[in-house]
């Protein structure tokens, strides 16, 4: 058996164990009123709990790997004379130094990170407004027109003006019926896709197991 086959078997075993453990565990009602059904349900839930805890540890470790990757990439860029990479590396070194000297002090976060993120959030608003304005350039069709009409109706409906009461009612209907239905349809499609890909991964049919 090749490495790919072994990986597929491990993936299948772990995936099936987790799925069954999550579906059947912690629900004694599934096994009727027989004595020991609670203990059985608790035992069935155990493998899922253990595997999920292992996952949390792996995720925590992967953050360290991500930071190492970030530094590696920017050290490489620094050698190509990229100024912003020097800023990033200097900021990283200074933050580590600051946290080492002033243990638990979050003033650097509050003084630098929060204002920068706030500025970016404000910029994001402008980008969104600009994007909305550009829709008709990119999609000069019925769907683009509908998109702009809905956005305008909702924006107008949110204004606190008595004259716009009919628009407000129309906007509320839009949000409650067609927008809600569309959003549910999109989420339903994504949920279906999630299940199909999940099944493929659990069955070991995913490309990443093929070596």
């Amino acid at each position, binding site marked *: 058996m090749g490495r790919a086959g072994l990986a597929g078997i491990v993936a299948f075993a772990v995936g099936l164990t987790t*799925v069954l453990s999550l*579906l*059947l565990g912690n*629900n004694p*009602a*599934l096994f009727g009123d027989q004595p020991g059904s609670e203990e059985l349900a608790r035992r069935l839930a155990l493998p899922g709990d253990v595997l999920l805890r292992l*996952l949390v540890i*792996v*995720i925590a470790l*992967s*953050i360290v*790997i*991500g*930071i190492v*990757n*970030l530094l*590696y*990439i920017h050290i*490489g*860029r620094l050698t190509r004379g*990229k100024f*912003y990479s020097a800023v990033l590396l200097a900021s990283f070194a200074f933050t580590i130094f600051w946290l080492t000297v002033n243990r638990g002090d979050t003033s650097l976060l509050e003084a630098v990170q929060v204002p920068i*993120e706030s500025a*970016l*959030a404000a*910029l*994001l608003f402008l*980008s*969104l407004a*600009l*994007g*909305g304005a*550009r*829709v008709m350039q*990119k999609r000069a069709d019925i769907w683009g027109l509908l*998109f702009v009409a809905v956005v305008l109706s909702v924006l107008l409906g949110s204004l606190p003006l008595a004259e716009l009461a009919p628009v407000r009612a129309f906007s509320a209907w839009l949000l409650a019926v067609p927008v809600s239905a569309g*959003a549910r*349809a*999109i*989420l*339903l*499609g*994504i949920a*279906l*896709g*999630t*299940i*199909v*890909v*999940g*099944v*493929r*991964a659990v*069955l070991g*049919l*995913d*490309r*990443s197991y093929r070596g």
Partner: protein
Amino acid sequence: MDDTTLQVYSVVFVAITVVLVYTARYFQARRWRQRQLDGMKRIPQWITQSIESSRPLHLSFGNAGVGGDNTPVALAEAEFFHQVVRRAESCDMSPVVSLSAPTSLPLGQDVLRRAWLKGGALSRAQWYPPDLAYASAISALMADDEPAAHIMAGSFGAELALMLDSAARRGQPSLAVSDRLDGQAVAFAQADHVLIGEELFAAPGSSSQDGGGHGDAAVLDVWRALIISGATILLMLEFSKRLPLLSWPLVAIGVAILLLLGIFTVWRR
């Protein structure tokens, strides 16, 4: 619905999906004509531009990572990116794969390792901190690496607007799709090309010659058709209760007409 019933339904649903996946893969879905995804039509052209101009493609997972709710999104996009990287292999520069979920870093590197057979591209999988920090880092990447095009398929929020705006200002074309509604709305408004909803998962099959990918797309279509049919029938039944003019035969005729319309639409595609 109590927990037990829900769990039983879940098991039945998953079991049916398993049967459908195996059946579709057994027949390799060769006879199944997959739906054309409009958003995908430009990808071959972008790959050609990337090869001719020696500029990399930028492939982005966003915040889709292994281990979270969007694990299947990350897996599906890894498959999609694999197909794109395979096709772009003649380019001098390997594509850049960016992501903001550290758990998908091995996935991104795996895509480059398997599909970029020239090797030496592992450092082109790049992690950046999530959300606004990621958006600003990608904007900087757009200026530094000048990618030929951006394929942003994964999990994005409203911060996608910053990236797409930056790409548009630099004249770099983009395809975007997100499993989050806010990101999807931004993608529709600002990306040059867009995929919507389950097209996120149908994209790998659409970009490959692999029968397995087509099979997964076929399973998606079967489930979708079943759900639409079920919803239509339930809707008509609900109407029949409220409107005394509607009788059972009329409901049946209405359902039949709607289903025929659906089949006709699929056939036309």
